[in-house]
């Protein structure tokens, strides 16, 4: 019996460790250890950053407009042979793109202008949304976008297919001038022959439309026309034919896109980027080099044959990296793990500042946080240095308003900005000063003035308004979140000292998003005033689309529901500059930051220093705040040993 037991255990271990020590990753494969991925591999589905790495490597290198790792936009010379920009009498600006003729899909077929026009059209069509996707900002700002996007028009007036390798995009005059105008002229290719073999792109002076291939119109019978006439319907043959054709066109596009949503989304058969999709199994996605890839904007091609993005538990990723099971892990922020990796001989660390920050966010249309002085009091009731030390192990900094240390504006005018802004940190007296400027001035009877010296840490003495309502804020955070932990620790200790009752509820991330983005829609069920989240900025910093303009009050896009005419004015002034007015942009940006801080809809808590932890076998892994490893994959190499 003993022999049997010993034999079984021995065989198990022997089989398991058959090759002795753990094998290092293959020299031809770059293995990234990441949190779980969703498995959506085309744009329009899901918002996982880790899925997005794959999407970038599959689909994002053949854009007409791209950006450098430093976040600088440029016309992609690998894709665009020539281009012209013309302005018509109405002020509309037309970009005409002439493509190189040697661009290829991963199956060897040619990338043509039709593929770019198809991308602009399907990605902004209502059919794409009906297929379950989001259409983001494709085609936004072009003439006729609203009509095409809403389904009111069957032609996209601002997009024209000129010849096999030439197409044009016309930016609507009402969107101009726009500081990031070049982003409106960007387009990607989509493989029309694969995605929509049942459709054709037809283009004339009115714009481009997607039509059903092989559709033959059959006029209704005389009896049906008679019946329609009887019930008062339009029986004009031309109108009947036009309606039937429009219906068929919409149906053909919808059918094609639904198929894309059910198949290509999960296993893309074709791509234009440096890699092509191989498989997604057991939470690992594999990509293989695309031998037909022409190169990135500098003409560089990738050198590593396979990319594997593997799910690894986040508390073990550094151990796995040191053991050689994975080659890199990205975006690390925990100090202890960074130190451990730095101490290992076979790992090196690459760091960069975040173009964004984590924040304590407040709804400006609900409860006490409607008052900017209450929001400022919250700013003075937390020790933000402790947040950086506690959560980030010291690897990070603190911003005073809505900016990140890696933004180009900050690099140009950071010192000036810091002088203009009011630095703030834990200060109970200052918090009380701000609260003394609110309606929360009384004891529980609503008459006796509140005396800050009587406030204690137990919260037995709180501020009330004249109606006898207590000053209380409800915070919603998430479980297993160190930021929620430190917020709870700090505010529960400090808020009572200013006579403020603070409570914390923890929910899952969906509950947080529900209450944060759609709080305005919850009616009687609304109960939370504050939240903890984070924001990252894209290279095109346009706060019109990122929370603050009053055009979006009553929608998730203005998530804090902040409405301020002065801020609106600055936002519009900033975005309405000509792209050449860089200095003016920075000047208005400074004013914008000052006004934003006066309103303080968020208390910025920390701006991380991110670390990519990389095996010493891997070189060129020089990510930036704007360029993940997927965007610089052509620069990355791996040694055999």
């Amino acid at each position, binding site marked *: 019996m003993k022999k049997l037991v010993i034999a079984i255990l021995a065989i198990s271990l022997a089989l398991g460790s058959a*090759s002795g020590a753990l094998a290092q990753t293959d020299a031809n494969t770059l293995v990234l250890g990441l949190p779980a991925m969703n498995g959506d591999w085309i744009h329009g589905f899901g918002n996982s950053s880790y899925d997005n790495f794959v999407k970038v490597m599959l689909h994002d290198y053949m854009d007409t407009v791209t950006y450098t790792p430093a976040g600088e936009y440029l016309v992609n010379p690998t894709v665009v042979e020539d281009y012209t920009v013309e302005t018509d009498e109405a002020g509309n600006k037309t970009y005409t793109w002439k493509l190189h003729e040697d661009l290829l899909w991963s199956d060897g077929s040619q990338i043509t202008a039709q593929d770019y026009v198809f991308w602009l059209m399907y990605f902004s069509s209502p059919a794409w949304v009906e297929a379950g996707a989001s259409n983001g900002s494709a085609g936004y700002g072009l003439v006729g976008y609203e009509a095409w996007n809403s389904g009111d028009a069957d032609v996209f007036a601002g997009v024209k297919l000129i010849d096999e390798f030439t197409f044009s995009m016309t930016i609507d005059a009402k969107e101009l001038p726009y500081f990031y105008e070049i982003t409106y002229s960007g387009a990607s290719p989509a493989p029309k022959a694969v995605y929509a073999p049942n459709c054709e792109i037809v283009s004339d002076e009115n714009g481009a439309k997607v039509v059903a291939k092989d559709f033959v119109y059959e006029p209704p019978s005389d009896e049906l026309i008679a019946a329609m006439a009887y019930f008062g319907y339009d029986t004009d043959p031309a109108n009947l034919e036009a309606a039937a054709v429009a219906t068929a066109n919409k149906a053909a596009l919808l059918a094609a896109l639904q198929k894309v949503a059910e198949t290509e989304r999960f296993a893309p058969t074709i791509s234009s980027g440096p890699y092509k999709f191989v498989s997604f199994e057991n939470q690992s996605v594999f990509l293989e080099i695309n031998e037909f890839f022409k190169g990135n904007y500098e003409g560089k091609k990738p050198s590593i044959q396979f990319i*594997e993005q593997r799910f*690894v538990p986040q508390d073990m990723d550094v151990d796995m990296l040191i053991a050689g099971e994975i080659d890199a892990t990205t975006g690390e922020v925990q100090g202890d793990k960074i130190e451990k990796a730095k101490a290992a001989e076979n790992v090196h660390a690459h760091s960069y500042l975040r173009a964004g920050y984590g924040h304590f966010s407040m709804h400006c249309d609900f409860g006490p946080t409607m008052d900017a002085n209450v929001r400022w009091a919250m700013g003075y009731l937390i020790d933000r240095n402790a947040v950086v030390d506690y959560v980030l192990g010291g690897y990070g900094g603190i911003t005073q308003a809505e900016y990140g240390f890696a933004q180009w504006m900050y690099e140009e005018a950071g010192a000036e900005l810091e002088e203009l802004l009011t630095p703030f940190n834990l200060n109970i007296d200052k918090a009380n000063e701000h609260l003394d400027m609110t309606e929360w001035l009384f004891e529980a009877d609503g008459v006796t003035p509140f005396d800050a010296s009587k406030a204690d840490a137990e919260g037995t003495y709180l501020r009330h308004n004249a109606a006898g309502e207590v000053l209380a804020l409800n915070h919603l955070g998430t479980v297993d979140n160190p930021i929620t932990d430190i917020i709870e620790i700090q505010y529960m200790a400090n808020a009572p000292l200013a006579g403020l009752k603070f409570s914390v509820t923890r929910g899952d991330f*969906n509950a947080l998003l529900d209450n944060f983005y759609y709080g305005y829609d919850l009616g009687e069920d609304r109960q939370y005033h504050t939240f903890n989240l984070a924001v990252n900025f894209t290279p095109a910093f346009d706060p019109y689309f990122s929370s603050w303009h009053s055009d979006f009050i009553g929608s998730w896009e203005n998530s804090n529901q902040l409405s301020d005419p002065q801020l609106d004015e600055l936002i519009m002034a900033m975005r309405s500059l000509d792209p050449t007015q860089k200095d003016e942009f920075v000047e208005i940006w400074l004013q914008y930051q000052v006004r934003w801080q006066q309103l303080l809809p968020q208390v910025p808590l920390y701006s991380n220093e991110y670390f990519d932890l990389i095996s010493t076998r891997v070189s060129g892994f020089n990510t930036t705040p704007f360029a993940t490893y997927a965007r610089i994959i052509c620069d990355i190499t791996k040694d055999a040993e």
Partner: protein
Amino acid sequence: MLRYVIKRLLILIPVFLCIAVILFGVAKMMPGDPVRAMLPSNLKHDQYQMAYDAMYRRLGLDKSIPEQFFAWFFNMLRGEFGWSSMNNRPVIDVIAEPMRNTVILNIGVIFLQLLIAIPVGIRCAVKRMSVFDNAWQVFSLIFWSMPSFFLSLCFLYLFSIHLGWLPFGGMPSSVTLSGWAYFFAWIRHMVLPATVLALISIAYTIRIVRNSMIDALNQDYIRTARAKGLKEKTVIYSHAFRNALIPISTVVVFTIFSLFSGSPVTESVFAWHGIGRMLIQAVMMRDTMLIVTLNAFFAVISLVAVLVADIVYGLVDPRVRLS
């Protein structure tokens, strides 16, 4: 026997219906808007309502609650389990791969469990209070009482971090490996989770087998058998073991049906892409249809296991009359 099985199967129908009603009711009572959870985050305001309405209709939420229930129930019977909000695709597509992984892992566990626990349990009973018995009792107590996450972490530290013999977890890939290399990669990745699960199962099963055997060995007919001069092996395996089979068969039947049930903690620690880990993720992400489908599946498995166990009782013990 046939009449008994048919009768029991018919009883399962209302039982399952009740379970289905409870599961559906719980799913409907879960907080949050399932449509909102599934919509992409970057829709513009005017696109949002259009997408919301489309998804609302797609999920059948525009129908009454009874209509939704019956649609869900009959779809489930046809193998259509709804839409996973976490993965944004049909539930059936989501669970196939983890189910396969869990079954593969559990085959290893059950193999080790039955191969070791039954002979050891019998021997412990026969050699009661011996060093052999005491040693296995200590083993049993330790591993039965030890939380699986703790045991998993100990194994990870020892075999992966300290000794570097075995992978930290995860699954092998068929892209870079094939043939025997792929097979051995599976074994290597399975060893730690399978060993942890097997040790806990063995600890539990040994106690069941030992106690049943001790009860059987104390019966008068064993004394009679020995008095007749039968060989000890015959006494133990033909007389005692057969009479100890009812509790043991219960364990064996439920063990075999546990092939399909995952181990949330162990699978999570070892990043084994199994059904247990998926259930945890589904609960964390409030993926209602996935939670309901998995629970309905586990309910069916449990009901069938109970039926099979009852049938097995009749087979192993003639005194049990199935009628």
